[in-house]
């Protein structure tokens, strides 16, 4: 009983210590420039991370957020993830009104502990502490504090200055306490320009960063990924241990070799399967054909299912299991594919990658795990192919926007290294559209379209091929400016290859393609491939990023009825900018008008001041595309 009282007094004084640290949370005390373009303001964020030599650690976090309007409500929630290797305790939440007066404290039963299984994971030991204070009037302030304990660190929680767009930061601080000589490395991204202060006390080294008065970030079109825009600091332990596997971040080789240890011994296949695949490749002439056949075998046999359990987040399960149950996650399926290839004498390498069409490249200069996916590298003859093992649709050797043009870690027993994946240049990101508009005397029109999508351009079309006919039609109709379109045929064909090609054939009808006036018939020449305009942004802050080179060629052929005669035709032109090129050619033949339109985009990162140049380049293109053909009756 006595101990309980003493610990409660201790507890209370800690609470009041926290309360005293929040000096002025009145909404009116927020500097007015921090209210611009902000749905919420982080008045105070503080995170103190402590790491012990045993490999344990803890975070003590407190966050004071003022929510300004409905769009900032999600910043009033508490949402902290944990799993088998971590725990969250001492959760406190208090709500204050706009004058800093306490409205209420969060009750124990308002803090929910729920499973955090993501939509695509079938089993996940991620859990979540969640609270939603549901306050009525704005602005209001919520203060949360809690402690998170870790059993072992593979990834040390770092520091992101902002939680997202449209939130400003009045003060944010992060400190890391290294007990008894624990070694770490740290590196900020390009936007992280802050210097730490370092102190030492009784064998514990403390490194602290404090950031103040940061204006909110506004989301801008065609910008870098949010991970590159938010200033952030990554912390990597020099050494780590997970379950019983020890590793270090001293070099990519060491990190890769540790990942290899997790793979070892998980490559057994039942004899029956080994025989089956040997038979399958018996008549194949070379390694390329053998690998291609095995890849298709795997695609038909297994399904991708996401499973993230404890070290399962890092270690694949046995190839045998994949073989038996016909499912696995990216690690298991990659390991399985590697095992199949090995059984017929073809060497391949398990690779770790930061996948995703919007993901920034990893920082090669900073060794630590920056990956979220695994796939397979296959050196074949003079080429290097990368195999995506989680898709039943993707052709052998095609990577696309998911894993192209980035550095990946090739995992080996003693010689792991960084390699850059394939880049899809112009001819591998190419669209060719051809349209024939047969205009009838009554000015209705039958249209035949053939579109050929090569490489990266085929990716969105692949999804469309798998969709229902209704969704396909809706997608096609959405591209046009034409009205009352009736689609009669819509078919797809694919040439499966390392650079796949998908062909789309469409036949459709429009009851009225022209505007009829007293003497004329007016037909806009391009009602099918006009570009939607980029948003005008004044005083742009972020870089402009065009991720890949792109080509598009359109031919629009109008077959004109003899009842009308072309009087004024759109003007041809060509122009270019640092962002790309546009060209329009116009040809008149007997009863035909032919337009050849060509657009090219250059891959690159451009400084924000160039945005007005991009807008006027695009404006020029749209002005060209909006031209009309004027016929006389």
């Amino acid at each position, binding site marked *: 009983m006595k101990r309980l009282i003493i610990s409660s007094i201790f507890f209370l004084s800690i609470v009041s210590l926290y309360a005293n640290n929040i000096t002025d949370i009145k909404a009116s005390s927020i500097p007015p420039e921090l209210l611009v373009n902000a*749905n919420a303001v982080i008045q105070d964020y503080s995170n103190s991370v402590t790491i012990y030599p045993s490999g344990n650690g803890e975070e003590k976090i407190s966050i004071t957020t003022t929510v300004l309007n*409905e769009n900032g409500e999600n910043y009033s929630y508490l949402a902290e993830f944990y799993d088998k290797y971590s725990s969250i305790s001492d959760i406190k939440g208090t709500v204050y009104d706009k004058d800093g007066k306490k409205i209420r404290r969060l009750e124990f039963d308002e803090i929910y502990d729920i499973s955090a299984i993501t939509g695509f994971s*079938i089993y996940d030991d991620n859990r979540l502490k969640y609270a939603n204070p549901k306050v009525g*009037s704005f602005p209001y302030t919520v203060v949360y504090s809690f402690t998170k304990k870790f059993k072992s660190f593979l990834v040390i929680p770092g520091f992101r200055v902002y939680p997202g767009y449209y939130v400003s930061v009045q003060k944010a601080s992060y400190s890391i306490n290294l007990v008894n000589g624990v070694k770490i490395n740290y590196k900020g991204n390009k936007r992280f320009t802050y210097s730490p202060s370092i102190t030492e006390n009784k064998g514990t080294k403390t490194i602290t960063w404090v950031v103040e008065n940061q204006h909110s970030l506004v989301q801008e079109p065609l910008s870098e990924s949010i991970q590159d825009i938010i200033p952030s600091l990554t912390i990597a332990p020099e050494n780590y241990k997970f379950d019983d596997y020890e590793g270090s971040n001293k070099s990519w080789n060491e990190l890769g070799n540790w990942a290899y240890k997790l793979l070892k011994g998980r490559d057994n296949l039942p004899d029956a399967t080994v025989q089956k695949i040997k038979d399958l490749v018996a008549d194949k002439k070379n390694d390329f054909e053998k690998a291609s056949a095995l890849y298709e075998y795997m695609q038909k046999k297994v399904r991708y299912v996401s499973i993230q359990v404890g070290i399962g987040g890092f270690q694949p399960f046995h190839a045998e299991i994949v073989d038996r149950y016909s499912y696995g996650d990216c690690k298991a399926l990659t390991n399985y594919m590697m095992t199949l290839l090995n059984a017929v004498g073809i060497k391949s390498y398990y690779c770790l990658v930061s996948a995703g069409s919007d993901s920034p490249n990893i920082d090669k200069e900073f060794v630590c795990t920056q990956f979220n996916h695994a796939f397979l590298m296959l050196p074949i003859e003079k080429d290097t192919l990368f195999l995506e093992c989680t898709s039943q649709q993707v052709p052998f050797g095609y990577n696309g926007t998911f894993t192209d043009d980035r550095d990946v870690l090739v995992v080996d027993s003693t010689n792991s290294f960084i390699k850059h994946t394939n880049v899809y240049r112009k001819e591998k990101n190419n669209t060719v559209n051809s349209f024939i508009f047969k205009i009838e005397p009554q000015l209705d029109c039958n249209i035949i379209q053939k579109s050929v999508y090569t490489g990266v351009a085929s990716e969105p079309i692949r999804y469309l091929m798998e969709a229902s006919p209704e969704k396909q039609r809706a997608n096609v109709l959405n591209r046009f400016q034409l*009205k009352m379109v009736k689609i009669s045929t819509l078919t797809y064909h694919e040439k499966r290859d390392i650079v796949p090609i998908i062909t789309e054939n469409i036949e459709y009808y429009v009851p009225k393609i022209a*505007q009829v*006036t007293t003497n004329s018939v*007016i037909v806009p020449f391009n009602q099918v491939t006009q570009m939607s305009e980029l948003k005008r942004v004044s005083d742009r802050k972020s870089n402009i990023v065009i991720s890949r080179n792109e080509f598009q060629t359109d031919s629009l052929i109008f077959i004109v009825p003899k009842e009308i005669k072309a009087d004024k035709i759109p003007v041809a032109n060509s122009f270019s900018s640092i962002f790309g090129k546009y060209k329009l050619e116009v040809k008149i033949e007997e009863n035909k008008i032919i337009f050849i339109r060509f657009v090219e985009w250059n891959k690159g990162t451009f400084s924000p001041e160039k945005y007005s140049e991009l807008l006027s380049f695009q404006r020029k293109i749209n002005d060209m595309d909006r031209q*009309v053909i004027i016929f006389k009756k």
Partner: protein
Amino acid sequence: MPNVKVGSVFEISYSYQGIPNSYTIQRGIPVAYSALLFQEHPDLDVRITEIIPYGFSYKSNGTYIAKNVPAFKHEPFITSENDYQLGLEIELIQIRGIIMSYFGRNNSLFATSWDRVAKRFLGYTNFGAELENANLYLVDLVDSIKGKSKNNEELSRNAYEAIKKIKWNRQEACYVSQNLRETYKLKKGNSADINLMLVALLRKLGLQSYPVLFSTRSNGRILKTDPTINKFNYVVAALGLGNEVIYLDATDEYLPYGLIPDKISYCYGLPVIDKTDISPVLIEPTKKDYLFTFTNLVIDSTGTINGAVNLKRLGYNAVNFKNMLKEQPNHDAYIQELEADNSGWVISKSEFNNINDPYADFQEVLNVKYENSITSDVLTIKPLSFIFEKKNPFQKDARELPISFPELKEYTSNVSIQIPNNYKIEELPKSINIFNSDKSITFSYIVNYKGNTISIASKFRVNKPRFEIISYPSIRGMYESMLQKQNEFIILNKI
């Protein structure tokens, strides 16, 4: 789930206690076979109402079998799928026998009549009982309202505006979630918390007020002949002033006094009063979706267009627009969307007047500019339409369900275009004036010119809220004509 492929079959069985309010048979996927066995019980009087777009294959003694029911396809502008999907509504009328002697006679009567329904609601702890409380916390507010009101109408308006300050949590309900005192203290609640609070306040001000229950349009219609307790999902306050009854919903800050929210337009509302011979009353909206725009454009000698667009939004157009604007992250986002919808135009200024005053005319002013980078002797200009619809909501060729608009529409546009001295008019869009057979939809587009000025006056009207399926082609056609005219060009030639 692992191993799911086309052709996989799932078998799911479950059970729960209680009688469901409804049993929906038709769904978004086809139903090959559906059987409901509703065992009759001598002590339970239950009314089963069928919603039958298609018949049952077999129906007898509580057994309903349906076969080969097609998937339900949603169409734009219907009241609710609940009004059209094959299914049953189940309403408890009365409990008899031993159970009745346990509950007592009155407690065993449920939806026997509308009077009984009203009586029950009056007795519920999370409805009528709340109105019985003394509600003493309202005293200060009552005094302050009395202080600034000269007559009953002002009392009720001020009361309405005061309750509108309570924040609605976007939950539609006919039962309160907390007692009225909590609602008043926390300043937030669901629609029942707020509107019953309004009834309580009006009564404390000495006015005649009572709650009115609704099933919203999207929840589905109620029938005057079929009393129900289960179907209601919304409540508003009614006020008797002189000979009039005024309906007030305090959940939407943009609704002016006396305008019902369009989620209950053309619905039946049940007055909850302790009387005999109560009957649901049909509520009709008192305003339209009304938009008036005036556009003034000046084309200079280089072909650049400068102009201003004035938009006046009234009735439901104002309410819906203001609510839409609230969803936008900021004003810039709204301007960017407008520019995206009107390719080539740059909006240099956008201003709103009277956005927070539901009683003043809500106006919007845009300064616009169009610069063509192509120099040519021929100018092709699309007169603006920062107005009307951008896409035809009626895309499909055929329609299965009647069309229902929540309110009538009137969109008027006047455009005045001044052309430069060095150009002459080559082609103008043709004027049209079209309407369907009973003039329930009309569209006129009249083009004129005098000297250097072109003027275009257009008007689109929907004069009735409900259309049978047979009218669909003409409705679709009228919308299409309106959209086509908005996309037509004026051609000017250099002199």
